[in-house]
């Protein structure tokens, strides 16, 4: 299978799991060996533990899923302790990518620095597409100048390759250019789309936080368009994420200009999908990376 190089990192195939859909690995342990994938991205960690949002947290739509999980996680301290004591990632034989998010800007810098020192971690995915509590809840990537500033500061302190995950709600092309200018290694296009669910019988919003993240096969054409537009504008490697439900879908993202492809929501339905996508790409592409469309 063709390899992908991002910075100093080598991916044996271009298939990754998407952050937030794979937990910290445990849920998929029965379904496949992680070493079969190019990489895995862990669920986003924040400085303090987060309990997450009250139920309901899910709403199904035709070919799509709305979620309002609320970045539930154990907190970086507990994670750090566990990883230092147990060193589990070295056994996984794949690139383990830690996803981090902050309550405020400085958290991204602090957590990147600490994540760089942990054993068995290949790269850091900086999740800028989460709410900034000091800015009224808009995401950290709402303004281009913030993207440049945060990523530049992270790059100073992180000693591992840094990927930046963006929200599709803002100027993705503009933000990707800032990520490139700040010298991150790759940009992840993208987090979930803003969605809303209303219960017409109860005449109320379905979710306590009203808005939710929309993902699943329904978003694939939107994600493909975003990946293609960003690929036309930057030379930074792109990690595509959005609605992959088959090997063909993954190939489409590579043709749109992505270097790597993440699989998320559809793995809830087909837990072995990432491995099936690797097998498909192996058969259809072999050792030759597909040439992106002009």
């Amino acid at each position: 299978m063709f390899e992908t190089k991002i910075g100093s990192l080598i991916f044996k195939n271009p298939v990754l799991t998407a952050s937030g859909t794979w937990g910290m690995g445990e849920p998929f342990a029965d379904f496949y060996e992680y070493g079969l994938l190019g990489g895995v991205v862990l669920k986003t960690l924040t400085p303090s533990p987060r309990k997450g949002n009250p139920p309901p947290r899910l709403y199904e739509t035709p070919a799509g899923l709305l979620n309002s999980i609320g970045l539930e996680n154990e907190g970086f301290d507990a994670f750090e302790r566990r990883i230092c004591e147990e060193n589990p990632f070295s056994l996984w034989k794949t690139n383990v990518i830690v996803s981090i998010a902050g309550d405020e800007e400085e958290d991204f810098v602090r957590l990147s620095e600490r994540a760089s020192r942990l054993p068995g971690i290949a790269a850091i995915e900086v999740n800028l597409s989460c709410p900034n509590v000091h800015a009224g809840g808009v995401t950290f990537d709402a303004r281009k100048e913030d993207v440049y500033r945060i990523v530049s500061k992270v790059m100073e302190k992180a000693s591992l390759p840094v990927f930046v995950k963006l929200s599709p709600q803002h100027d993705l092309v503009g933000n990707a250019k800032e990520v490139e200018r700040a010298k991150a290694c790759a940009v992840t296009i993208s987090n979930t789309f803003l969605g809303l669910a209303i219960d017409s019988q109860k005449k109320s919003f379905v979710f306590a936080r009203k808005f939710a993240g929309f993902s699943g096969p329904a978003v694939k054409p939107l994600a493909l368009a975003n990946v293609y537009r960003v690929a036309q504008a930057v030379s930074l490697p792109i990690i595509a994420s959005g609605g992959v439900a088959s090997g063909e879908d993954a190939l489409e993202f590579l043709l749109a200009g992505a270097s790597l492809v993440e699989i998320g929501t559809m793995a809830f339905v087909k837990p072995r999908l990432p491995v099936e996508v690797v097998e498909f790409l192996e058969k259809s592409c072999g050792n030759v990376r597909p040439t992106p469309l002009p």
Partner: protein
Amino acid sequence: MKYEERATIRSLRREGKYLLLSLFSPRIAREARPGQFVNVRVSDTLDPLLRRPLSIADVVGEEVRLLVQIRGKGTRLLAEKVVGDTLSLVGPLGNGFPMMEREVIFVAGGVGVAPFAWLMRLFPSARLLVGFRSCEMIPPLDWFDEKRVMIATDDGSAGEKGTVLDMMKKVSLKDKVIFACGPHRMLAALSDFLEKNSPDIEAYFSTESMMACGFGACKGCVLPKRDGEYALCCSDGPVFAWREMVWETR
């Protein structure tokens, strides 16, 4: 061990609002325990997208039996299948009921009766108290030892008139353990009943929730615990010691 397994429909019977399915699914059948569930892909297309979590009613040899209430798009699609069709199952999922050498009373509401088909075989003297809205809501009970099934209906159209709790009032709970499965409202009422009448009793409630994966990845199926934290219905449950959880009517 959990599997994604392509299961063949060996038998399928639709009766009223219910569907009785026997699926040849040897790997899942071998691993399953009573009170666990399977997540069933009702269609190989992308709509509906998510699998449907369905309680394992019984396991006989290499077959997994499901007793399904037809109530939405997903279960209606399931009802259109025919013998010989295959379905993708993920399972067995969840923790199941604890096995013990104690006298157990089974309490169920509606299609929550399903897991007790198997449990009645494993607890040969346990009785099942089950409530339905009316006689049309009673599923075929072929898989159950009917001599030990006590039925109540809200409208009195079958069995005793009243709820399953009215039947509970006539039963001695001394030294008994309760296994319950049913809608959240019923479990909340049962929790109130136990709180008043037998607060120290050991009881296990099987819950349900909307879920995407069924194996702990999506974090979508949380239920509130008494200590203020959340539990995942799919992988911490679906069976919980009743005292651990919050049962207020949602």
